[in-house]
């Protein structure tokens, strides 16, 4: 038999004995019920006393020893002690685990800040304190926007698109850059990751400067070479078997000039951020100009169709937009056979303005599409050389579109053709107010 069950039997037995003794004593004294009542009253008083001791002990558990009562009460107290001990053990393990976790996050080389749904700081590690100039304990419970006041950060935190980190320059840093990334989790809580990216930014700047300087330095000698090659090609005394090589040299020199021109253009685009404002650009005029350019090519697709479905204008930098659109059209023309067709379309809907170029060219295998806008990326190296492109056209397109808040979409089927579409946000599109004069003309 279990000790607990035994205790219960014992308690039941005790009650029975009490009742019997009470009844017996009462009977002897001539009042059976009175005896029973007294006996039960005594029993109840004893139970109450035990209850009181139990409650007192529970209240002062931290320093008092458990009351030493046997039987059922003792069993109950033993159970409570066991429960308590188990709870304490789990709590200790939990605290230890927490401490370990905190210690490991604190040692992270990146800054970590935990924010609750109200954007209040719940916890941050040492690195975050150093990078963001936060104060331990004093800044807990503070709204993060109160301390990171930069408008870009406030906008980023207020928005809901946390897919890309933002880079800011801290107020007190001379030449340092911080990258902030928010990862939402749980019930509206946010994990803010802070990294010092000064080194990367500096390297990036060095790389950009190098490309710009190198291109610039290469341009002058190349101009001289091209100039002499031109004179040489036109020289009547040039021997017949040298004509071919000289013509080829001229072609390659022209290509190099084009590459350098594009590199300089790219580094100029990279220098500056998104264009704010700009002048309205007449897309219809740009498109008709591009069409003429295509038709002026020595070999061009037989069918070049233009469909301008809106007279809305695009707000931005005209030379850049022209360069981006012309790169898209040039590409399409280059890869479309003479009997193919090329379509240019401009339309406006609720999502903004869209410019698309569709061709019936050779198409692009799907695995190459994500990498098309990389510099010098070639789908087919051999053919690219034959077409004489610089390999930078789509990179320029990408940068120009980025500067205008636009995105590039490429769909393609091999052997059928490709469509390049530039999507501009509604803020970049302006619908001209129709004046009666304009309507008449």
């Amino acid at each position, binding site marked *: 038999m279990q000790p607990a069950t035994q205790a219960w039997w014992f308690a039941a037995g005790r009650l029975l004995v009490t009742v019997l003794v009470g009844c017996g004593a009462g009977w002897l004294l001539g009042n059976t019920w009175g005896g029973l009542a007294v006996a039960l009253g005594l029993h109840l008083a004893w139970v109450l006393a035990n209850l009181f001791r139990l409650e007192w002990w529970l209240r002062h558990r931290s320093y008092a020893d458990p009351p030493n009562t046997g039987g059922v009460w003792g069993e109950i107290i033993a159970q409570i002690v066991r429960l308590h001990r188990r709870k304490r053990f789990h709590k200790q393990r939990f605290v230890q685990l927490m401490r370990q976790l905190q210690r490991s996050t604190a040692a992270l080389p990146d800054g970590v800040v935990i924010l609750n749904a109200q954007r209040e700081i719940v916890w941050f590690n040492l690195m975050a304190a150093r990078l963001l*100039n936060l*104060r331990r304990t*004093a*800044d807990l*419970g*503070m*709204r993060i*926007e*109160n*301390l*990171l*006041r*930069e*408008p870009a*950060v*406030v906008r980023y935190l207020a928005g809901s698109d946390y897919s890309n980190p933002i880079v800011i320059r801290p*107020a*007190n840093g001379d030449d340092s850059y911080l990258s902030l990334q928010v990862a939402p989790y749980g019930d509206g809580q946010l994990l803010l990751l802070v990294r010092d990216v000064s080194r990367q930014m500096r390297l990036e700047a060095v790389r950009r400067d190098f490309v710009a300087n190198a291109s610039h330095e290469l341009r002058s000698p190349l101009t001289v070479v091209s100039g002499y090659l031109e004179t040489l090609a036109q020289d009547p005394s040039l021997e017949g078997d040298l004509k071919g090589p000289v013509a080829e040299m001229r072609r390659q020199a022209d290509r190099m000039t084009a590459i350098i021109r594009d590199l300089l253009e790219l580094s100029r685009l990279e220098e500056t951020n998104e264009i*704010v404002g700009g002048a309205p650009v007449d897309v219809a005029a740009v498109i008709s100009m591009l069409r003429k350019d295509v038709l002026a090519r020595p070999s061009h697709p037989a069918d070049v169709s233009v469909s301008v479905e809106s007279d809305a204008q695009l707000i931005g930098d005209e030379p850049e937009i022209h360069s981006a659109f012309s790169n898209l059209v040039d590409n399409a023309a280059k890869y479309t056979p003479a009997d193919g067709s090329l379509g240019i379309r401009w339309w406006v809907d609720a999502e903004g303005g869209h410019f698309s170029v569709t061709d019936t060219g050779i198409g692009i295998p799907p695995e190459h599409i994500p990498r098309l806008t990389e510099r010098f990326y070639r789908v087919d190296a051999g053919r690219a050389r034959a077409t004489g492109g610089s390999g930078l056209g789509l990179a320029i397109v990408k940068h120009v579109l980025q500067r205008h808040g636009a995105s590039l979409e490429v769909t393609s089927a091999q052997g059928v053709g490709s469509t390049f579409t530039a999507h501009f946000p509604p803020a970049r599109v302006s619908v001209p107010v129709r004046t009666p004069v304009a309507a008449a003309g």
Partner: protein
Amino acid sequence: METADLSHHISRRFNEDLERVRSKVLGMGGFVEQQLHKAITALVEGDSSLGESVALDDHQVNNMEIQIDEDCSKILATRAPAAGDLRVIVAIIKTITDLERIGDEGEKIGYIASRLATMERPADKYREIKHLGRVVSEMVHDALDAFARMDVDSALRVARQDRLVDEEYEAIQRQSITFMMEDPRTIRRALDVMWVVRALERIGDHAKNISEYVIYMVHGKDIRHTSLDDVERELRAAADAAPRGQA
């Protein structure tokens, strides 16, 4: 903690209103800081378009001021705050005026920067202005941090730093006069530079004002026109007498 005062409130809504206005003030402060930073960069790097954009964006600061002012009036009218809360509102109303002025000075610097960008640049490439600009930007930043944290010690530090700015202002002034005497052709540019330095010095004063409002907000003491040493002694004594700080 002094900030805890804001959180024990009978009305939670009131608390949230107050906290929201405080955040708006700090948001405005963040924008002003950025304007100032851009203006100084425009001047030092001779970027005329950046300078123009600073001058063009100033109206946003004015709009923020008007909006926060309205919010404060609304709180005063509907909640009738008393004691510490009233001080917070009063301090906010004063702070946004100073922030707006900093914005105006920033606009001035941006405008002058776009004009100076077309002129010949001096040999020192505005090094003094860059340095003074950094000191002043830091003052504004620290004053706003003190405002956010209700941190009296930092506020006092900012107020002290104003002396340094004044000294620097004097030094640049003297230097500019020397340049002007040496070569009268630089007078036009030197005058413009003086305007910028003057604007920076004013911004320093405004940052000092903001930090004084922080002390007023926390301790209920008006320390304007009092020497800083006296203020510090008094605050120390008050802190010693009541270690938990008065509400």
